[in-house]
Structure formats: C-alpha cells, structure tokens
C-alpha cells in the first residue's frame, strides 16, 4: 500500500508541476488531458485502444462512486475517451474542484491498473508519463 500512496503522491505532484502555481481551470484541464494522453500513448500499443478506453471508463465509474459530489460531472462525460469533452467539463469547475477531479481520476486509473498487473509493471509501463516533468520538481510534496 505504501508504494501505491507514494505513486499517488507522484501523480499529484506531476499534475501540480504541469499546472504551475497560479493556473486557471483551462490550464488545469490541459494538464489533465496531457497526462491522460501520455498514459494512452504508453498503454495503447500494449493493451490496444479498446483496452485503454475500458480502463478509462472504469476509472470514471470508480471516481463517481467514491466521490458522490463529483458524480454528476463524471457521468456527464461521453462513453468514448473524448479529451475535448473532458476538458470542456473541467473548465466549468472551480480551480480547486478541477484540480481535485484530475488528481482523483489519474490516481484511480493508476491504481486500477495496479490491481490488474501489479505495482512494479504499472510503474514500469507508465514511468515515462511522469519522468520528464518531474526532473526539476521541488520536493515540497514529500514533507515527512
């Protein structure tokens, strides 16, 4: 479990890093979409387009049941992985909600993959998603 939360922190940090300190919802939406695209690019060659879309849908469903407050937002999204629709939903949120939405969705997707193929292979397959943006990341997120 500790590796998982560590990875979750990494995802949150990576998102925060991409968004920057004073971002509006539009740049938050762009950052979330960019990470999803990177995950897609890493996984689709291996598990196929259908495989990745299925993971994405399942993650949305899990997010909706875990956070009823956001259920309406998640459910308003189309069945296919449509990043434009996703971004347009995110920009309607407040800054805080948009960021929270992204963090939950990305960590859920990561954890879902972990339950299926284990932490080490998940980390291996998705390592490229976070690495470039984290290279100069400050470590304030990992305060003891």
């Amino acid at each position, binding site marked *: 479990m500790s590796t998982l939360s560590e990875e979750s922190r990494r995802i949150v940090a990576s998102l925060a890093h991409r968004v920057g300190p004073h971002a509006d919802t539009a740049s938050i939406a762009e950052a979330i979409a960019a990470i999803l695209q990177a995950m897609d690019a890493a996984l*689709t*060659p*291996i*598990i*196929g*387009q*259908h*495989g990745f879309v299925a993971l994405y849908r399942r993650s949305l469903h899990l997010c909706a049941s875990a956070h009823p407050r956001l259920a309406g937002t998640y459910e308003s999204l189309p069945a296919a992985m449509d990043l434009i629709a996703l971004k347009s939903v995110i920009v309607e949120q407040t800054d805080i909600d948009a960021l929270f939405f992204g963090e939950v969705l990305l960590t859920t997707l990561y954890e879902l993959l972990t339950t*299926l*193929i*284990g932490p*080490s*292979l998940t*980390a*291996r*397959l998705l390592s490229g998603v976070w690495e470039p943006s984290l290279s100069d990341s400050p470590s304030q997120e990992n305060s003891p």
Partner: protein
Amino acid sequence: MSTKVTINRLATGVPGLDEVLGGGLPEFSFNLIAGPPGCGKTTLAHQIMFNLATPERPALFFTVLGEPPLKMLRYQQQFDFFDSEAINHSIRYINLADDTLAGDLDEVLRRIVSEVETHSPALVFVDSFRSVVLASQTQDNPNNNLPQFVQQLGMLMTTWQATTFLIGEYFTETDTNPIFTVADGLIWLRQSVQRNSMVRKLEIMKMRGQPTLPGLHTFRIATPGIKVFAPVVLSPAELPQALPINRLKMGVAQLDEMLGGGLPRGYSLLVAGPSGSGKSILAATFLAEGARNGETGVIAVFEQRPNHSQNATLSDLIRSGKVGLVDSRAPDLSIDEIVQMLLGEITRLKATRVVIDSLSGFELAVAPTFREDFRESLSRMVTALTHSGVSVLMTSELEDRYTDLRFSPYGTAFLTDAIIVQRYIEVESRLLRIMAVVKARASAHSDELRQYSIDDNGLHIGDMLPEQEGLLGGRPTRQRLSNVDG
C-alpha cells in the same frame, strides 16, 4: 576450412527443452507452438522470451486477438521468470487487435514488418496465430491469402535475422495447414487425460536440421515455469565389469556371504517378499552400511505412510544428509520425472547407493497413462540408474503364492542383476521367515534357503532348516527319512 553455414543454437532456458530439441533452438528459425487451450503455449513462449531477450537482442511480442494483453500480463507475472524491468526495455508488447479485426492480412503483415524494422528484434512472437487465421476466413477479402501471408512472414523474419514463434491453437495434426510446411520447427503441447489424471506432454514434431528426441515428453508447469522431463541419454557403450569385481557390503554379514561376498558394484538388486517380511529394513540396512563406509545414498519412497519416518536409522541418515530423500507426493508422476529427481539427488550427494521402496508404491504413484508401459518404463529407469554407476536396491511386494515360484510382479525379475526372495513358512505353529539369493548375475552365490529373524537390532540370518523340506510351498514337512526313523 569449412565454408558451410554454422547455425547457432539458442539455449531456451526452459529446463529439459534444449535436450528434447536436440541441442537448443536454431537461430533465425520460424517456429510454431501449437496445442489446445490451456496447454501452456503462452507460458512456454514467455519463458523462452524472458530467458533469451536482452537489450542487445530484444524481443517483440505481438498480441493479436485472443487473450487480452492485460490478462496475459496479469497471469504471466505469477511466474518467476517474469521480470517487469525487462518490459519496454528488452521486451516490447505490441497489440495488433485492431488491425486483425479489420481482417486484412496484408495490413497485419505491414504492421508486423514496420515494427520489426523499427525495433530490429532478435526474437518475434505472434500470439495467437489462430486469430490471424480466423480473421482471414471471416473476411471475403481477395487480399487474404493465408499461405502467402505465412510464406512472406517466414521469409521476412528470417531475412531480418529474427527467431520467430507463432503461437496457435486448435490445429489438428492432419490438417494441411500451410504453416506446417513453412515452419522450421513445430512444438506441440498436449494434455493427456485418463480417468481422473492429467499429464502434460510435449512433442517436437519437426525441427529442421536437428536430431530431436522423438516421442512425447512430459512436462509440468509450476511457479518457476515449465520444466520438461527429457529422457536420460545413455552413453552408448556399457563399461565392462572391472575385475576383480568390486562388491558392496549389505550390512548383514551372512547375506554378503550368500551373495558371494557382497553385491557387485553397479548392480540392481530386487528384494521381493510378502508384506512385513523386512524388505524395507534390509533396504535401510543397505543404506546405513554405505554411510558407515563413507558412502552416500538416495532413497525414493512411494508409500502412503513412508517407512523412513518409522525407521530411526533411516531418518537419522536422512537428517544428517548422508541419504537424500525423494518423496514426491506430486500426482501423476512420469517415469522420466522420477528418474530426473533421482539423478538430481544422486549428483547432488555423489551417491553410490540407491533404494526404491517399493515398486508396488511406485506403480501407484505413476500416472495411469504410463501404467500400460510400466515394464518398459521400469527397464528404462533401472538402466538409467545403473548407467550412472550407482547400485540400486528395489523392494517389491510379493503376494505369497505358495503354489508357484514367482519372484516379482510385472515380470520384472529379468530386469535386475540380482534377486533376493523372502518368504513366510509355517513350522510348529510359528510363522518363520526364510530368505534366498535367487540370482546374482555373473557371480557365484549361495543356493541356501536360510531362516532369518528381525528384532530391534535389525535383520539376523540364521541357519538352513535341513530337516525340513518343501519350504517354498510354505508348509514344510520333516524329511521323510527322519519320519521313518521316528
């Protein structure tokens, strides 16, 4: 100087497979791994891939329709050989499901070729090839020419110096599938089910340019992966018996005498007798005597309640490492598997004495599918063991049938170099035991029927019962001469 091409042979890393293949897998060969669902095709492919792939010699694993890649990754991780670190490093998975769904073989081939050109793999896997075949059948597409697809794939992969594996199922051996002609190697996996027992078997139906070991070879799938039980290859010539004959002490002085000075080294000895006659005690004494002389031994037990836990001497020897124990409770054993376990222990301990207790239990432990060939198998085992230079003592339950003089069930008596028979006889309302050396090949031996007893200190051989006759009938009578006198 030789100008002929040298074909490198890759060590697959699958225990026993290289032996069966006749020395490994030819480099740049185009192979088919076939068999029904659940027979271990994908596992075999993965084990070979993880063993052979390196950053310099990477592998491409194309998943076509069939097992979803997520599930495959999930389940293959359960094996020890699976190394997450290798993924996207020396091993790359590529999903071709969408291309296959479109049903255009030309497009599938184009994708495979473009990925191969990008990554220059040394190893290429296509799982499962069956779905490629199905895709070609479902579409009424003039471009879908399966023989041509296979032909081109085979040619391209060889040209690109890639050793290739197509993984397929449901093929019937009598099919005139074009792939059988194109493939350099056909590895066929089977599950043989008889009654309630299942045995996995592997056959190399074809492997160009190599002396493969013919026939069906059993294998198991466990956490370390697949293990093939290749038959032991015997050295062609049997060494002539060294003279003077080197003999082993049995641990019972009188018995050594009866054998003409002990059991000749490298002999196989069958101890046959009814239940409770002391066969296991004699076997334990044989091992203990070896240990006393600084020799090590191996015992294979095939009993429901193994005797070694009741025999203090034997359990001490096992605990102290002087005797190796082969006590496989695995169901559905094959002879080759047992021989491998025995030889493994013999090599590990440099053992010189081997006991198999008992053949009757051994027969029960062997999967039903092998029982028909039990005699042949037993003969192979005895030959394999004695060829390795050890002396073998086997016990055999012998129902007391006083009307005939039989030494072993299964007609195995001819297989062994020496035979000791134990019997019960009735004398003056007591059950006495007698023992005789029936056979000791190329060695003078006693022809005496000797009474013996068993107590806490082991087995003691006494005298003959000269005044009795008809001992082998079980109900001896006093000799007529003394009857007349009396």
